[in-house]
């Protein structure tokens, strides 16, 4: 309980410190918004000329793309600090987390408010809502509940991958390009109907890297398209559980390596 209170206090302080530079904050939000939605311009241009991609209309793809962006934005807002661990380790700033009683991960994520991430989130929410107007899904309480769980699961998956890379930075010097590469993988393959990439790619992006579980599987469930999947529909329905498993494993890895952490220069 006390942990929660302290975490919220720290997050509040981060927000207040960010708001001291309000114009800069708004500019970063606008940047995040523009940057994240530019990718969709590509798909939109293709679909003004062609009706559909592998049976997915503009609305369907916007739904998938928006859901992925929403998850990505939420991850960046809640776990944005994780991606800064690598330079904090290199600069020797990481050590201070270890002498304080609050779990290091909570301190990392409440240190600074990642302004651009709010733009990502805003872009995701906007695109997702617009897509919902286009596809007209009839939300039952069950579907709404699944959507909520799927978003949580997606956030946990993306956070788990970032956490693993942050943990690797305890031992490797430069993990920036690795982090960037994994993000590329998620946005390259996670934003489009995965069946167009072929069976082998689909298998790797399901059982190797859990890209398919972030938005593609949940989108096929909500758009009633699970019959196009290469896996059993039950796998798609179980997407939120996969998030919990991946994050659990990533957190154990982080805790184990944290105990063996040696400050930079050793």
């Amino acid at each position, binding site marked *: 309980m006390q942990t929660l209170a302290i975490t919220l206090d720290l997050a509040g302080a981060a927000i207040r410190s960010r708001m001291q530079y309000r114009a800069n904050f708004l500019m970063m939000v606008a940047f995040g918004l523009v940057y994240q939605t530019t990718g969709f311009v590509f798909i939109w241009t293709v679909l003004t000329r062609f009706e559909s991609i592998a049976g997915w209309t503009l609305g369907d793809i916007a739904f998938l793309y928006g859901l992925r962006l929403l998850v990505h934005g939420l991850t960046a807002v809640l776990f944005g600090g994780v991606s800064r661990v690598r330079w904090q380790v290199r600069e020797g700033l990481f050590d201070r987390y270890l002498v304080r009683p609050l779990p290091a991960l909570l301190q990392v994520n409440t240190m600074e408010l990642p302004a651009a991430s709010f733009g990502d989130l805003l872009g995701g929410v906007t695109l997702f809502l617009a897509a919902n107007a286009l596809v007209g899904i009839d939300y039952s309480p069950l579907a709404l509940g699944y959507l909520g769980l799927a978003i949580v699961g997606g956030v946990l998956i993306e956070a788990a991958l970032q956490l693993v890379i942050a943990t690797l930075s305890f031992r490797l010097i430069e993990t920036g*390009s690795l982090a960037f590469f994994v993000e590329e993988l998620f946005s390259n393959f996670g934003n489009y109907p995965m069946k*167009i990439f072929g069976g082998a790619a689909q298998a790797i992006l399901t059982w190797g890297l859990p890209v398919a579980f972030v938005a593609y599987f949940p989108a096929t469930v909500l758009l009633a398209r699970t019959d196009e999947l290469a896996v059993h529909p039950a796998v798609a329905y179980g997407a939120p559980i996969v998030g919990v498993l991946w994050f659990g494993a990533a957190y154990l890895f982080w805790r184990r390596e944290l105990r063996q952490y040696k400050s930079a220069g050793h």
Partner: protein
Amino acid sequence: MWMRTCITYRFSWSLDMLGLLLQIYTLKMIWTAVYAGRDQVDGVPLDGLIAQLTFANLLLWVMYPMLAGYLEERVREGTLALELARPAPFLGQMVAAQIGDTAAGLPLVVVALPLAYLLGGLLPPASPAAGLLFAVSLGLAYAIVVMTGLVIGLVSFWTTEVGGVMTIHAFVSRFFAGALVPLSFFPPWLGTIAGLLPFQAQASIPLALYLGRADGLESVRLLATQLFWVVALLGLARVLWRLALRRVVVYGG
């Protein structure tokens, strides 16, 4: 010297290249799905389209204008003062750094080309003449990319930060250079905008010549368009530079 600096970060480079190949593969799969079994749409065959997109992404990757970032760094850190004092002209130093950076990337192209062929698709030039025109056009395209980078970098004298602009530029230039969707598939109004921007001259024009999509007179017009942009951007960079030099005094105190 910059060339050596860049080669040191081989791991970063190879992941960067892997990212490029993934993008090429993604584009190929998306467009294959869009064509849905048709051999051609509006006279554009699928293999020609994929070759164009593969080449365009490779070109823009090799020619990436790092110098915008170099310039920004020097303005922010203040090391600019030192380089201004050197006998070689400052902008010339920046362009030299860029050329070194590109040269460092060339060995990677040798690795990237066969992989890009496998994951995307490539075609030989339409004719020897087309290959020659392409070589000329590519030189002009490189000049345009470098000038664009210079202009973006010079903006940092006013904003001290161009990271955001560069990131957005990376997408905008790929999009309007026709590296994601060929310009002929743009809606007419968007195509008009693309025609007025310098980005088409960075990849779309050299590749139209390479693939033999332009006849005699048209190819002259395309080269002239490129030449226009080289001159126009060079002029813009010079004007910005003169204005920027006045500001340096302000920062120097």
